[in-house]
């Protein structure tokens, strides 16, 4: 595995994570529980689209074969997408989406922080900007979880159900393959296990404040970074990529 190929794959994973998380959040547009939250959800979605774009642009540069960032986003199929399984899960109710957002941000924040020490200057640059945004996303979702947990029986119940459903996808975020090995050796990326402590510290702190408990589950599902996905990603991509597939090269 050469480093260039590994870096390309890693950039696509980061880009796909943001793209898919952003697309899911965009589904909330006009459906937010209150106007203020509708704006907040779509703000976060746009932040993530922006991060995705930066990673896709860099991936396109690394690939250097004439394909653009748009081609990467809109013309790859689900077996060529490397995002984590968590972010592709359907939105469910507001508690479910908030939990999904929280778990993703709790993972992405320490990852981006650790990438500040990367030997790859571009990766360092993109993540130093992204980390400010992701900190806010983490704060936003954490505040909501704490309020669900201390709100009504119903809000606590719904956020616990969300956690029960989503926890099985958290190991997937820390899954590594040969690309990671090559990048760790080159000092470009990190051993994802090293940020697990930080991730666990964040979730334990917030779950304690929100009266939530991590479920005992033996149904751990992984595969995202190897492009093995749940049944939901294909359906999502159909909708997201429809325009570019039906009208190749369409612009506005």
């Amino acid at each position, binding site marked *: 595995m050469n480093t260039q190929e590994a870096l390309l794959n890693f950039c696509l994973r980061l880009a796909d994570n943001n793209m898919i998380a952003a697309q899911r959040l965009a589904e909330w547009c006009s459906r937010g529980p*209150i106007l203020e939250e509708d*704006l*907040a959800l779509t703000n976060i979605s746009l932040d993530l689209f922006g991060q995705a774009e930066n990673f896709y642009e860099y991936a396109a540069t690394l690939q250097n074969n004439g394909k653009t960032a748009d081609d990467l986003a809109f013309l790859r199929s689900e077996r060529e997408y490397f995002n984590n399984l968590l972010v592709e899960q359907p939105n469910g109710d507001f508690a479910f989406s908030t939990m999904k957002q929280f778990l993703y941000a709790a993972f992405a924040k320490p990852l981006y922080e650790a990438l500040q020490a990367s030997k790859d200057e571009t990766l360092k640059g993109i993540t130093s900007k992204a980390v400010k945004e992701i900190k806010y996303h983490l*704060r936003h979702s954490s505040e909501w979880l704490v*309020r669900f947990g201390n709100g009504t029986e119903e809000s606590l119940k719904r956020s616990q159900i969300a956690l029960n459903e989503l926890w099985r996808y958290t190991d997937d975020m820390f899954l590594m393959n040969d690309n990671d090995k090559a990048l760790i050796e080159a000092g470009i990326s990190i051993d994802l296990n090293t940020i697990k402590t930080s991730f666990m510290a964040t979730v334990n702190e917030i779950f304690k404040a929100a009266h939530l408990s991590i479920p005992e589950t033996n149904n751990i599902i992984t595969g995202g970074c190897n492009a093995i996905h749940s049944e939901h990603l294909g359906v999502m991509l159909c909708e997201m990529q429809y325009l570019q597939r039906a009208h190749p090269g369409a612009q506005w």
Partner: protein
Amino acid sequence: MENLNQLTQWEVFIQSKSGSPYEHAGSLHAADKSMALQNARDVYTRRGEGRSLWVVPSDCIVASSNEDAEEFFDPSEDKIYRTPNFYKMPKGSTNI
């Protein structure tokens, strides 16, 4: 009776840069003060409008009423001597 499907209303004030006054930007609904601050950030500062925010529960603001407008504000209308109209500018100065 309290309207249970509405959260508390808050007024939002934005300071555009350090040292400038906080100016009223609008209002929003939120459950408590930290959520109000987050909502204010999301609703009112998306386009770089500010560097600092205040949120104040709307019912903490004491406002003058329309009925009071005459006795509050009309008397100042003919007190032209309270404005610096008759003040001679010192030589060489363009504004004070």
